């Protein structure tokens, strides 16, 4: 059942992005940052975690989850360390993803060369 929910929610998020790309003048960059911000806003209001509880990877894999994690980390650290926590906490939960992106991009660039 979880697989089905993940498939449907993840698919719907991607379909929304594809519809925006196909029917508006927004570029992939706009969609990328727009979904991150939207995830952040939904996360700040407490909705995104509930969506993850419902759909699992269907909600945690799309880029909107990254926005949610940024806001969630910032809010958690802000509770314990005050205003500075907003800055230090932002990358608390996202550091794995960012570090993985840098490391794998580096390894790929070292090994492969684009052919076309």
């Amino acid at each position, binding site marked *: 059942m979880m697989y089905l929910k993940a498939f449907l929610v993840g698919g719907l998020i991607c379909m929304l992005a594809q519809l925006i*790309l196909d029917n508006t*003048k927004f570029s*992939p960059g706009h969609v990328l940052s727009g979904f991150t911000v939207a995830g952040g806003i939904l996360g700040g209001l407490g909705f995104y975690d509930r969506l993850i509880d419902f759909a699992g990877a269907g909600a945690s894999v799309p880029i909107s989850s990254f926005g949610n994690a940024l806001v969630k980390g910032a809010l958690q650290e802000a509770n314990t360390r005050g205003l500075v926590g907003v800055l230090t906490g932002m990358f608390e939960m996202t550091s794995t993803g960012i570090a993985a992106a840098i490391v794998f991009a580096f390894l790929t660039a070292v090994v492969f060369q*684009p*052919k*076309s």
Partner: protein
Amino acid sequence: MAEKRLGYQTVRLASPPYIVGAAAVAGPMEAQGPLGHEFDQTYPDLLAGQQSFEKAERLMMQDACQLALKKAGVTGSPPEVDYFLAGDLLNQLITSTFSALPLAVPFLGLYGACSTFAESVGLGAMLIDGGYADRVLCATSSHNAASERQYRYPTEYGNQRKPYSQWTVTGAGAVVLAAAGSGPRITHVTVGKVADLGIKDPYNQGAAMAPAAVDTIDVHLKDTGRSVDYYDLIVTGDLARFGSQMAINLAADRNLYLGDRYQDCGVLIYDSEKQDVHSGGSGCACSAIVTCGHLLKEMSRGKIKRLLVVATGALLSPTSFQQGENIPAVAHAIAIEG
């Protein structure tokens, strides 16, 4: 008015220079297209044995120049040409400038986006007719992967292309113009004005360039007192399928019926059924290799006698479109008569 000028934007060359040699080299996608057999040399992949796409483009321009010089019977090192006029799409014209280095002849770099082919040949013809040169080498190139990286997104980004987007042509075209010799002659040059119709989408260049192309064709015909029927073929550079249809409609609005005498190099170069190029070809090699590889050969076969090449350029930079500026366009026309 200066004695060689006709009307507002056209010059009539008093002693029309000859195209004594022309060559076109092309990448793998173009080699598989309907004109593949017409190109003088093709490369099996986009790197062409080089370390980078930029170096591959440079090799292509140099190969095109050497082939054109050879066909023109121009020998010697440095080759016996008075000027090398060249342009490409890469920042600071690196393809042209680095190609000019081994040639070691006086060099002028040109940027007209995809209108560069007509710009270089037109200027070369004017230099010769003006008595400033006996022989001029003109070259134009573009490279799909190098251009995409600079103007839009690199391959690694995995971006989706819109249905009306065009495919930047990989290749280079070169011509040797001479005051004396044999071959088709450049008789008129119409230099276009920059036009802006408010297009902002860098994938929709055909729409940005169509009005400029129609304006230049219209002005050329008025300045010379010719009609569409005078030419066996009028080709635009790289409007592709959507842009060329738009040009036909815009021309009809001006009571100019292009009919079956009109074609577009961006449509001719690929097979839209079999090749995944969306709207068609673009890039400054598009008009260069279709003209040098195919149309000039059709002239020597006697199938075309009077040709008007209208190369169209979309004048954008990554900075200008990221800052929300419109994409203006320009089109230059050269009349080639056999």
